[in-house]
């Protein structure tokens, strides 16, 4: 009970005649009126949704779950079905072998990497360790000293 209610009730009761005249409001009636007013005030909250003028595609009525049992289920089923369909499509897409899809990109990737290797080799030859002009030098050895 709100803090205002006893005061309001008291004021109303004080104003009411001690013996109710026939047909006039009784203290019980007055109390019910106070109770009703308090109940209505408690739940008088403005709408959460901002007003927006409807256009052609606007649904006929706002959401009324109480009047449309099952509406939520159909939406859910629709969403589930949509998700499952996407899953199947996505699986097919995934199934299109990422490795195969990746080969084409690898060509340019490999070319840039190779060019960098060639350039680095030209720029940093190790004395006596096989220069850039030693064709096919792949006889490297793990014992070879590292760079200074």
């Amino acid at each position: 009970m709100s803090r205002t209610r006893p005061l309001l009730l008291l004021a109303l009761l004080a104003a009411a005649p001690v013996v109710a005249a026939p047909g006039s409001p009784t203290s019980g009636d007055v109390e019910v009126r106070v109770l009703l007013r308090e109940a209505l005030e408690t739940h008088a909250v403005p709408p959460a949704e901002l007003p927006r003028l409807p256009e052609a595609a606007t649904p006929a009525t706002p959401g009324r779950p109480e009047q449309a049992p099952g509406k939520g289920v159909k939406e859910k089923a629709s969403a589930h079905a949509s998700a499952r369909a996407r899953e199947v499509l996505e699986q097919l897409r995934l199934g299109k072998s990422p490795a195969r899809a990746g080969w084409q990109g690898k060509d340019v990737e490999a070319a840039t990497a190779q060019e960098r290797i060639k350039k680095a080799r030209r720029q940093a030859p190790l004395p006596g360790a096989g220069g850039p002009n030693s064709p096919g030098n792949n006889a490297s050895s793990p014992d070879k000293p590292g760079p200074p």
Partner: protein
Amino acid sequence: MTPLLLLLALAHAPCTPPSPAAGVVDARGAAAYVNAGEMEMAAGAVRAAAFAYGAALRLDASNLRAREGLARACARLREDDAVEAASAHLDAARPREALASLKEVTEDSARADDAALLRALALMELGEDTAAHTALAPATRSPGAAGTARLLEAVLAFRADRAGEAEALLVGVREGRARTSAEALLPLLRRDERLRLSAAVRAGWDGNLARVPEGADESGADGATALEASVSWTPTGARGPLLGANALLSRQLTQHAFDAMVVDAHGGWRLGWGEALAGASYSQLGGSPYLMALRLDVAARREVGGLLLQAEYGVRRELFLRELAPVLSSQDSGFSGWRHVGGAGVAWWRAPLLLRAGWRLEADRADAAFYSFVEHGPEAGLTLLTESGVAVGLELRAAARRFLDVDPSFGTLRADGVLGAALTASLPMDAHWSWLASLQGTRVVSTLPAFTHGRVAAALGLRYTLGVP
């Protein structure tokens, strides 16, 4: 509310058998409650109706209309509860429990069509597509559920490799939310037509195309435009033979040595569990022949408990054509060889998210051992696929690359650590056109400073896709 009132409220839950007030019969009051109950029942407010009938029976236990009304309302409430419970079970990926809940709902119930939809969904989750098709029957006959039922039928048809039937069903969905879903799915479905042609134009900027090492006093940045085209033909649908070809033509803004032209043709077989393909490709770089390659790819996948397990392996014989030129330097030789790419991973889908994680392995067995390397590491991806067909993906990868021998020019064994991230987006404008965008970053840390570099690249593109049934 006082504890006494709370107890009374609990005792008077709508479907609790009413205990009439001792010795008091109020037939007029009971009739008023019955009247209210019937109004509420007619408005579909079943809980309010049950409350009203219960209150009527407490005033007059002999009121037959109240008794019948309460039985009707409570049966309906039990069905509502069963449908809600089944729906919650499905949300929590418990299809068997959902099916058990739905046993409460009979075929002549007001919730029969909802129950049919949920039952079909649960059976689809369990992979029992034939039973799901049977379960859908009552919903297809109900005007309020027919659209959603048709959507589910389309999914069943698609899962059974009947893409044409799936498309026809989707086109026929005209109701509310189901229609929105169907319209969003159609372009995706059409991407998988038997003959699929696609062309794209891209423009982008690569912050370090030339992989210039950190601290070097040169710029590796360049812009590029590219044209891509692909055609793929699956004459028997999702399963059976597959033939395809791709082409790429790219032109750099300044570093024309990297202007590329790649053509590729492949053919193979797709099965329910995976596919096997063989292909050949030829590419030019900077206007001269660069690479000829032959390859074989196999991929397998299997769905286990809602997870998609995948494994793939590809091997490619690479012949770098410059190595065949009459005059060549040591830098131009030794790169040819065999390249192996494999991986295994798991994917999980819950609309609108697709999550992937896996481990990738790559081995380049070049003719020169010091050009050969083995690389492996984790990769993970996340794709957001919205109802409207917008796809946004984030891919992350890390890899350790180790070369197999010491390059004599450097005298030390090269080993790299690679970190990469890519953000991609595809925004469909209609059934055929879509915008593409990508942003990727890579950081390589090498034991040889000449190979430590970072790179950021971004591109925008426009793609046209045409599917022919």
